[in-house]
């Protein structure tokens, strides 16, 4: 199939409407905000190191046709449980981060498995179910952390326990492991500090994802993603494959949240995970992904554009209407609206595809009638 150049450009524009829109938006907003290029570059590097891993965790369920996995919140919770334990035990530095990952991996696997089972039962409405599952699990997490820890589960560090003797405090200072990854290998170019080790970890994950796509399991996920019934007819274990994709995503999200929190350095025990799903999904969609198709470049473009919008909009809002608050509200609005629009467009196209069969027949008929010289 050959395409003319203008068609190619048109196709590129249609496929990348969202990122292009954001580039245009930033083109005006960045100068308006008055931030220096160094500041922005520094922020971008930090945020790429902090957030990319979480967003990458969304890729595999998309491949398996399960849409945006709002359930990565579950993985984030697992990661936080690991961080609570290592803080309690006082494990320091990069060892602490790795230990947290090791502790939380089995928790993430179990949560991912449960989520996978539930999403299989809710086939056809995975996204809204994953979303609500995040809220539900938040309650279970509270039960576990606020009432179970220090009570049934031994926690001894009074710094993280509530004064009443059980339950974890609202905020935990992760001083032991603060930026343990980021500063493990230090590099500074001019005023810009680069978290080299975090980037190495992210690069490894990218390589893993590329490698994974080439495996038999990856191919099976692509097949399942396109059509459950046909995949099943060829002997692929569809349900199992779908569960596996959610398990992998949950485990990756768990690591992603640990990387995120070691950079931030403090953990809001009951809130840090709440918006993880929404922000990650918004980022990848701004990067040009859709519910059915997402790749690594969408992740990085998305993180840059999303966070750039995040950084500059309060200042730009202040310059524009004299109120920084407007900009703050605007960025929240942007993250929700982008998801709403992307999901709606996708559903819209899917509905159009359903009518395509009828349309194809109609076109054929019109052609036949015309060839005959019109209907009498």
């Amino acid at each position, binding site marked *: 199939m050959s395409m003319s150049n203008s068609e190619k450009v048109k196709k590129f524009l249609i496929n990348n409407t969202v990122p292009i829109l954001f580039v245009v938006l930033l083109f005006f907003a960045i100068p308006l905000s008055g931030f220096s290029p160094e500041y922005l570059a520094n922020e971008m590097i930090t945020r790429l190191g902090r957030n990319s891993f979480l967003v990458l965790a969304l890729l595999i369920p998309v491949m398996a046709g399960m849409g945006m996995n709002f359930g990565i919140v579950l993985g984030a919770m697992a990661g936080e449980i690991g961080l609570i334990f290592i803080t309690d035990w006082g494990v320091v530095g990069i060892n602490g981060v790795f230990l947290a990952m090791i502790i939380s991996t089995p928790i993430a696997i179990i949560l991912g498995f449960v989520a996978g089972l*539930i999403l299989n*039962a*809710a086939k*056809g*409405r995975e*996204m*809204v*179910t994953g*979303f*609500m*599952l995040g*809220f*539900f699990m*938040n*309650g*279970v997490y*509270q*039960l576990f952390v*606020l*009432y179970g820890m220090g009570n049934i589960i031994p926690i001894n560090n009074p710094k993280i326990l509530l004064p*009443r003797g059980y*339950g974890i405090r609202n905020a935990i200072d992760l001083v032991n492991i603060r930026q343990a990854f980021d500063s493990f290998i230090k590099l500074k170019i001019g005023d810009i500090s680069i978290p080299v080790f975090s980037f190495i970890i992210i690069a490894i994950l990218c390589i893993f994802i590329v490698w994974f796509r080439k495996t038999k399991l990856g191919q099976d996920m692509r097949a399942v993603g396109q059509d459950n019934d046909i995949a099943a007819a060829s002997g692929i274990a569809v349900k199992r494959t779908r569960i596996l994709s959610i398990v992998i995503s949950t485990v990756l999200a768990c690591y992603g949240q640990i990387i995120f929190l070691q950079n931030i350095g403090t953990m809001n025990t009951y809130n840090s995970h709440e918006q993880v799903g929404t922000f990650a999904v918004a980022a990848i969609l701004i990067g040009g992904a859709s519910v059915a198709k997402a790749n690594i470049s969408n992740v990085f473009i998305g993180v840059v554009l999303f966070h750039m919008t995040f950084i500059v909009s309060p200042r730009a809002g202040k310059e524009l*209407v004299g*109120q920084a*608050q*407007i900009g703050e*509200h*605007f960025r*929240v*609005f942007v993250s*929700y*609206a982008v*998801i*709403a629009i992307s*999901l*709606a467009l*996708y*559903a*819209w196209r*899917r*509905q159009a595809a359903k009518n395509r069969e009828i349309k194809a027949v109609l076109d054929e008929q019109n052609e036949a009638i015309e060839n005959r010289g019109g209907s009498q």
Partner: protein
Amino acid sequence: MKNSIIESIEKIGWPRIIIGLFLASMFVIAPFVGVSVGTSISDVLVRFTFNGVLVLSLLPMVKSGCGLNFGLQLGIISGLLGAVTSIEIGITGFLGFLIAIGVSIPFAILFGIIYGLLLNRVKGDEMVVATYVGFSVVSFMNMMWLLLPYKSPDMIWGYGGTGLRTTISVEKYWFHVLNDFLSFEIGGVYVPTGGFLFFALMCLIVWIFFKSKTGTAMTATGSNPVYASSSGVNVNKMRLVSVIISSIIAAIGILVYEQGFGFIQLYMAPLYMAFPAIAALLLGGASVGKATIANVIIGTFLFQGILTMTPSVINNIIKSDMSETIRIIVSNGMIVYALTRRKKARG
């Protein structure tokens, strides 16, 4: 015998039985842990009247096949616009409340049309799209609350601030205009007669609507859209009408809530308001595809019962406030449970 027990349990539904028994046990335990049953019942009744209309607003959309209205916030925003406009005008008492309703309805219709047209284009994915449309509208209104030219000193930030406050008291305007109407106390139980009458009136209107030709067509549309359209019904129009009606009732619902609660809550407050209402409806025995007015009444009662009783009773037993956690688990668990129920296979 055994079978018939299981059958009737399944007919009522496990979640309702569990929650019902849980609630009953709360009332039994209450006096032993020093919680007044009278006050508790008053609380449940009052909260029932606050929330009933919001839950009722979900009904038309479920019936027409649009699913659970995760975008309830659109109706709520209309109601909020009515509320702040009424206060800006400054008329107090029942008339002020009516003005709030009057102002909010055109907004509800307008939002309902846009929202309904959108939902018709995303059939099958209504719920996830609606969730984020609801969030988007709430966050968009965050900017509007700052920018809209409201002037009443009861509503705007004092001392040089601009925009509306997060919480606006309706004390001076139409606080409890419904609840205190014909209210009385009997054996220590406060009965908000007006609130009940208003809720009953709304239920009656909805009930009558579903007896009309249009209401019947709407029910059939939800039951089998292909059948409906082969009977000459315009399916998309029916869905659209249901969304508009849902939005109007939701707008009225939030106003009822505010007159009872005493405050108008702006900004992020409406963000998650759809979930408890949906959970209540499901708790009442509704499913993604079917709901009745009885489901609304039973569900609101059970849900508000749990919300009222758990803090007081559980807190007195284990001396710590688990109510928020229990609320999260019950309401969101109920929704997840309902989403995993498959529609009965055709055939």
